[in-house]
């Protein structure tokens, strides 16, 4: 039986097995390559997407649970937003492989806390590994996107 979801606002029907990983459905069936696989076991957050507004690791989610779900991937985020501009300006991306997941984690965080404290940012990103930045530039970008100071 096919699974019907809304992905980035568009209805999508997948005929993959209900046990298929959401990550593979997004990458292979929907050709949304912005969602990355870093570890395949829910540790790194490179495959993070929003499911009904909640941040989840798509490598751990079986397709069968996605019936009628609202899914947002990095391709579904606005290209020009305060967050995107701040990520560029602050140097929050280096190699970029964690960046899509970070953008979604930041989106989820800002939806919950419009003006997050540094501590809230730290915890909000703690499920997303970045090996390049030491995280400081990412904190700065999120604070800046939330209307905070230019330098954190």
């Amino acid at each position: 039986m096919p699974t019907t979801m809304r992905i980035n606002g568009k209805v999508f029907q997948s005929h993959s097995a209900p046990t298929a990983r959401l990550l593979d459905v997004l990458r292979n069936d929907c050709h949304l390559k912005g969602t990355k696989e870093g570890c395949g076991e829910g540790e790194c957050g490179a495959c993070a997407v929003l499911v009904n507004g909640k941040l989840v690791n798509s490598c751990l989610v079986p397709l069968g649970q996605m019936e009628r779900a609202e899914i947002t991937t990095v391709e579904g985020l606005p290209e020009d937003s305060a967050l995107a501009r701040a990520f560029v300006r602050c140097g929050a991306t280096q190699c970029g492989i964690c960046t899509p997941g970070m953008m979604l984690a930041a989106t989820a965080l800002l939806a919950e806390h419009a003006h997050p404290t540094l501590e809230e940012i730290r915890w909000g990103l703690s499920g997303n590994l970045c090996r390049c930045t030491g995280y400081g530039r990412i904190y700065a970008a999120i604070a800046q996107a939330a209307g905070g100071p230019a330098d954190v």
Partner: protein
Amino acid sequence: MSLTGAPAQRDQRADSPARVDGFAKITGSALYVDDLPCAGGLFGATVRTAMAGGILQEVIFDPAMDWSDFVIVTAKDIPGVNAVKLLENDQIVLVERTFRHAGEAVVLLAHADREVLGMALKRVSLVEQLNPDPIFDIDEALQAEREMIPGNLYADYLLNRGDLAEGERRAEVVIEACLRTPAQEQLYIEPQGMLARVQANGDILVEGSLQCPYYVLDALVQCLGMDKNRLRVVQSTTGGAFGGKEDYPSMIACHAALLALKAGGRPVKLIYTRGEDLRVTPKRHPSRTLIRLGANKAGTLQFIDMDFAIDGGAYRTLSPVVLSRGVIHAPGPYKCPNIRVRGRAVATNHPPFGAFRGFGAPQSIFAMEVAMDRLAKKLGMDPAELRRKNLLRSSDVHATGEVVGADCFAHATLDVALERTHYHQRLAEYKAWNAAGHPTRKGIGLATFAHGAGFTGNGELHLASRVSLQVLAHGHVEILCSNTEMGQGAATTLVQIAAEALGLPMDSVYLAQTDTSRVPNSGPTVASRTCMVVGDLIQKAAERLLRRLREAADLPASYDAQDFAAACGRLHAAKGDALVTAHYHPPAGMLWDEQTFWGRAYASYAWATYIAEVEVDVLTLETRVLDFTAVQEIGKAVHPVIVRGQIEGGVAQGLGFALYEAVLWNARGVMANDRLTNYIIPTSADLGDIHVVLLEGGLGAGPKGAKGVGELPMDGPAPAVVNAIQQALDIDICQIPVLPEYLLERCAAKPPAQEIPTVRREY
């Protein structure tokens, strides 16, 4: 020489234009190797040895399985040489009979369905005969009767200055220690992978995640026995490397190309899973250092004696050059008349160790800096004062015999770091805190060090790098070089250097995709050399280009982008050569003797003082870094935001090295904790504040006096953290990572401070 203000005081916006790769990465549109289209393609997988070296007796393909749909490659399918081209042809591409470690590739499989491929991997069985007594320990390898190679030594170096015996006579206080650092995984978040296809004319195209396209090209030439002109290597967006994608991509590229050669025109994608990547690709060399330091009562160093050994693993790969950098950096940024450093890279049955940010220096600097604190303690001196007394100044003689010139800022970094951290005040506060019986103990520790940028000694001369600039008719300029963007910001920095030298806006300059069919060989993207060495070549090429445009196309002395475009149009119309190339020439006085480690080892050293403040929970023995301050003199920050990002990220990796990252080995010498659930790198919740201070002396060998910075931040965090913990708990720490389990052991072992193992010490 005065230091200009740190870039924090300069206009950062003007100096730090937006990253050229920023938009594609933030929107998720950048294509990494696993994202590349591969229509009608196959997926590749690798069958590997299970034993720690031995003889392969038989390969059995399960007869119950239909293998007709599979592409199968074994050693007999290799058209060229069965060895990965690097320093020496000792590492094999595919095992034919003998092998040296668990995890060596034997059979390559490709199939259109990833799931079927996964099942098929389990249906190939290898009959292996294990060599007796595999070796996994450095000192065991040095003493073992069983030799994998003569003496089990890949390299044996001696740096010898002055007279050690004289130093021993003059020394009034001597300390001795044995210090160890573990393997460390680079843990780029994008696993390694390659995509290979045979094109209609029979040429082969390999695309993938890599640092050094010409290393991969040379490896393909040798393994496939094909002409260079029929092979093309293209770098896809690379999701982190840190040294980990310096040599191993050559192996994966050979495997993918061998499969593609038998796949009847279908492309083959060979992407490692995280577990496979952790188990088989190279990591930082584990090290063991026996160190003795002697000083007079006033704290002036009289001798440094180090026996520095690193585990090279089962093949030579890059170990001799890692060792050489480790040896040169071992005596630190100190003035000492009598120095002996013996360095050895030993053969064991681990998978080969390789490049990782710092390349041997973090290991030997760790030993030196922890030993300096032991010496300070024995002298009853403050560790900062001991360093101040011994740090190099201009006109002192460096350990390699080089007279230190004006470009020496060791003292400046120490002064700034002490001031910024309120070091002496903190020290007193933490002593009072620790005496008051709180449930935690606090400490403040430091490390002073220098890191040489570029290839060691004559390395840059041998590389003979070339960079070209191509003028397009409409006034845009393309940079052609083989240096790769892997997250460190090279693409932006190189474009910025070219744009500035040409007096053009950034968007008039492009960096060509790293494609060996188009770009000249400007050397590998390693050794903190890209900004300094390649950036300097770009600047020289830009000067040459401007000269040509003035002479051949009437570019006015003062011009804007429009004048420039018009001159480019005239150059093209006149069919003038629109390509200029700059070649590497060593800086004056760049003389180096590889046999005696004598001369000028690096074109520039960056100088640094790092200070860690830690808190250890007395009950759980967990260590938290409260604050970290990284002060470095780097010549010139070309792009301050990128430079800060490099330092912050490097410090984070260094803190992981110090506190969390433990590679555990199984009985076959393979990484046992081969998952991100049990190989722990710092998360955002683990790291405290990292303060970066950039000092600019403007005397480096790069553009505007810049020096390399990529590797520098890896050197300091581990010794600074360990020194802070030693102070907090008043114990000796002899290894990293400082896990609570280890601290429990050390605290229980107190007071007998430490054991010094007896090992071969002849020189």
